[in-house]
């Protein structure tokens, strides 16, 4: 408690700093938006000559590297807006992404929680997370860590591709892309400060402050975002699988913590854009690899990204964007050597990336996007660590060269997108991933059919920690179809089917021969299923209902198998139902209800060789927003997360030794937002 108290004093001091006047604006470093669904070439036809109907169809920004309206975009896409996040009172990115069909969460080791997509564990290199165009996956293991990590109150919108994105985005976008656009990069001449305070019964919950500001000086713009926060994972009791362990059970209050600092600065002048992101995430964890420790060592994840790009508008139809990027990751860092078994880990990675993107609108109906990328990854080992089982090997480097091309052609029969990416990794070998997408707009009905190859490029530690044979990229094929129908002006329904086949999946396991954690390419795995979403927006009520279902298909990875039920994989529920309803109330207030139902989940107690289940549960949250209270700049929110006190736990979606990690219990939340336009 004392530790959290000290942290909280720091958070309060930062909050005061944030409320001081000052500061400046920004934009993404991705190339500027390029409209596709335009009746005529916008490069040759001024916007002022377009009709109201044409203007209403113009996309404003880039959903992927090529801008398209959602219903015509070449992917199965979920868009989450700032309003939906604010209405829900979401505490962190887990709360936001939990509302996405097919997304659920699982436990890795060392108390790290992350994401699964459509029944597949996507934590390590299978989903790419972008913040204002910058990749935040670390490059040692390619993981992302969720749980009070990123500043959810500073998000303008999230564009989520719930399917493969490798053809354009490369080897970390095998099963999905989470593209986050910050408020500071989008809102000109605005200053914003937010604070949130959460309490569980026996410990503080999510307690965060953030600020964002942007300004313009002639043709220059600058944006700055800052975030600091602290949270307890839970105040429940954690029990491991080792009854003889003196620390078999312990209260997680002030033991399993998640502290975060995030800084994001962007500058733009004309075609020049730059961005700097510093992301520091610190956890304390006693669960480590399954045997609870007597105290909680610190684990640090530090990411620094610096990015420069210059967009050259060579002609109204042709745009060229060279880009330089430097990323340094120090993930999973733990320098405490006093523990047995050892938890020490001291490695970091650097990535140099240079790329060239060519955006060409060949005709009013045909556009091309192509690019070259050259990447050099280097892993560095600290004094007591090394690579490839060689105590003298302190560096491990490889290069990656990629070329990609994607073309879109619109015609009366259907719109056709064809794309492919070829990637040559100097350590892991070659990958070639083509894709084809057909979309058809029939007015009230929109149809899509997609067939994509994708791949996961092994990270530095995947390559270093191979078992018997060197690691190669895992290869995936995904078939998807989607139908979206506008039932009325206020109601729409979307249904999609998917079929995922993953060959040579890179699987983490404990090698009994080497007696250490290792990776190997297993045989194959995959899932198939459906997702459906219903939206109602009328007057004062806005409702979204979503259902998702998967079943295992062709899985031959024993680490994922559920005994006596080959239609489900470890870790993730087959059925998931989510709902969010917002009702506008008088006096600029609104009431929001979010609910998530998860069916039974399975996990494995590898220590005792016993399979166990997590019962179905309902997570229910209510949140009230009061906008422009006292002052037009001030808004308040209050609510309860996990109102029913459901005992949700994060479980491992593969055979390993970690017991279920309890999630937050009932948490009362207060939020405050101060926004100032100047």
């Amino acid at each position, binding site marked *: 408690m004392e530790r959290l108290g000290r942290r909280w004093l720091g958070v309060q001091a930062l909050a005061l700093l944030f409320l001081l006047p000052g500061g400046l604006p920004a934009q993404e470093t991705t190339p*500027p*938006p390029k409209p596709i669904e335009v009746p005529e070439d916008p490069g040759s036809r*001024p*916007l*002022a000559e*377009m*009709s*109201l*109907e044409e*203007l*209403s*169809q*113009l*996309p*404003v*920004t880039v*959903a992927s590297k090529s*801008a398209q*309206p*959602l219903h015509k975009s070449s992917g199965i896409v979920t*868009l989450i*807006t700032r*309003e939906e996040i604010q209405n829900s009172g979401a505490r962190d990115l887990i709360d936001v992404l939990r509302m996405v069909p097919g997304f659920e969460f699982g436990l890795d080791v060392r108390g790290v929680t992350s994401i699964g997509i459509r029944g597949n564990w996507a934590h390590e290199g299978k989903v790419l997370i972008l913040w204002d165009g910058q990749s935040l996956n670390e490059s040692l293991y390619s993981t992302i860590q969720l749980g009070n990590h990123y500043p959810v109150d500073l998000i303008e919108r999230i564009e989520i591709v719930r399917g493969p994105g490798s053809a354009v985005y490369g080897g970390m976008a095998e099963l999905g892309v989470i593209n986050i656009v910050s408020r500071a990069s989008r*809102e*000109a*001449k*605005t200053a914003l400060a937010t604070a949130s305070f959460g309490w569980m019964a026996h410990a503080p919950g999510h307690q965060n402050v953030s600020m964002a500001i942007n300004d*313009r000086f002639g*043709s220059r713009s600058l944006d700055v975002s800052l975030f600091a926060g602290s949270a307890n994972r839970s105040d429940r009791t954690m029990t491991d699988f080792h009854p003889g362990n003196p620390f078999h059970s312990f209260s997680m209050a002030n033991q399993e913590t998640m502290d975060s600092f995030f800084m994001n600065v962007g500058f*733009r002048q*004309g*075609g020049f854009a730059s961005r700097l992101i510093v992301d520091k995430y610190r956890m304390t964890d006693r669960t480590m690899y399954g045997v609870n420790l007597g105290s909680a060592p610190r684990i640090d994840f530090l990411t620094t990204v610096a990015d420069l790009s*210059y*967009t*050259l*508008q*060579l002609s109204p139809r042709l745009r*060229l964007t*060279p880009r*330089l990027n430097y990323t340094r990751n120090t993930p999973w860092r733990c320098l405490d050597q006093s523990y047995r078994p050892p938890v020490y880990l001291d490695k970091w990675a650097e990535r*140099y990336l*240079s790329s*060239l993107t060519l955006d060409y609108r060949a005709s009013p109906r045909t556009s091309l996007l192509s690019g070259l990328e*050259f990447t*050099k990854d280097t892993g560095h080992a600290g*004094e*007591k660590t*090394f690579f490839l089982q060689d*105590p*003298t090997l*302190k*560096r491990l480097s490889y290069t990656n060269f990629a070329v990609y091309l994607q073309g879109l052609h619109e015609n009366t029969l259907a719109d056709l997108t064809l794309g492919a990416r070829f990637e040559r990794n100097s350590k892991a070998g070659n990958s070639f991933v083509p894709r084809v997408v057909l979309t058809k707009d029939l007015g009230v009905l929109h149809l899509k059919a997609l067939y994509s190859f994708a791949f996961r490029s092994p990270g530095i530690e995947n390559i270093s920690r191979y078992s018997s044979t060197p690691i190669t990229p895992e290869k995936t094929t995904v078939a998807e179809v989607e139908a979206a129908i506008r039932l009325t002006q206020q109601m729409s329904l979307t249904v999609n089917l998917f079929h995922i086949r993953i060959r040579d999946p890179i699987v983490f396991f404990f090698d009994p021969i080497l007696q250490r954690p290792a990776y190997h390419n297993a045989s194959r795995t995959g899932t198939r299923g459906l997702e459906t979403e219903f939206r109602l927006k009328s007057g004062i009520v806005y409702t979204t209902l979503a259902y998702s279902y998967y079943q295992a298909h062709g899985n031959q990875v024993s680490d994922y198998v559920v005994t006596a039920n080959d239609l489900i994989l470890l870790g993730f529920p087959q059925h998931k139902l989510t709902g969010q309803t917002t009702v506008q109330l008088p006096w*600029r207030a609104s009431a929001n209800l979010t609910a998530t139902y998860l069916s039974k989940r399975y996990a494995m107690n590898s220590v005792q060789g016993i399979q166990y289940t997590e019962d179905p549960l309902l997570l229910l949250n209510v949140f009230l927003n009061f*906008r422009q209270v006292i002052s*037009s*700049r001030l808004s308040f929110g209050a609510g309860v997360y996990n109102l029913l006190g459901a005992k949700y736990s994060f479980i491992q979606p593969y055979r390993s030794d970690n017991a279920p990690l309890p999630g937050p219990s009932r948490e009362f939340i207060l939020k405050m937002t101060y926004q100032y*336009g*100047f």
Partner: protein
Amino acid sequence: MVFKAPARRPRPLAPWLWFVALFVCGRAVVHLQENPDRECEIKSAYLYNFAKFVEWPAASFADRQAPLVIGVLGHGLFGDSLERTIGGRTVREHPVVVRRIATVEEAQKCHIVFLPATERKSTRHFILGLGRSPVLTVGEITDFCRFGGDIGFVREADHIRFEVNLAAAHAAGLTLSSQLLQVAREVLKPGQE
């Protein structure tokens, strides 16, 4: 046991060379264009379209060639975008003129007044101040129409749409074309505002 790190090798520069060369050459030979703020430009084009589908009382114009004045509150970038997008154009023989305004009195001399989100603190003051003056108010803040504004921009997914407060426009003596109302995402009729 202490492991000695191997001597640092110089980082390869070759990957960057082609980039630098391209950057320098590109800058030398290409006439660079400013990156447009697309959202501002789309909204500017909307304003021009609104002007085409709204009828003002005859007394609002001194003569057939009198300018149609669009006032923009504040000194943000929107005014620049508006001038760039629709400057020099005409609506029914009226040349379109863009003016930056700061007071309600100045707004009353306009035909359209645009109230950007950056001026949210003044939005309500201007709506109330304009009252029943024949001035079309267009705004960006959430629920602009429910505050009594005439047309409010709304961000819907990746598109800019708009809502119309028909009662407020009628009260100001403005006639809105059915073509405009058909494209509106929502039309607030009397009793709904």
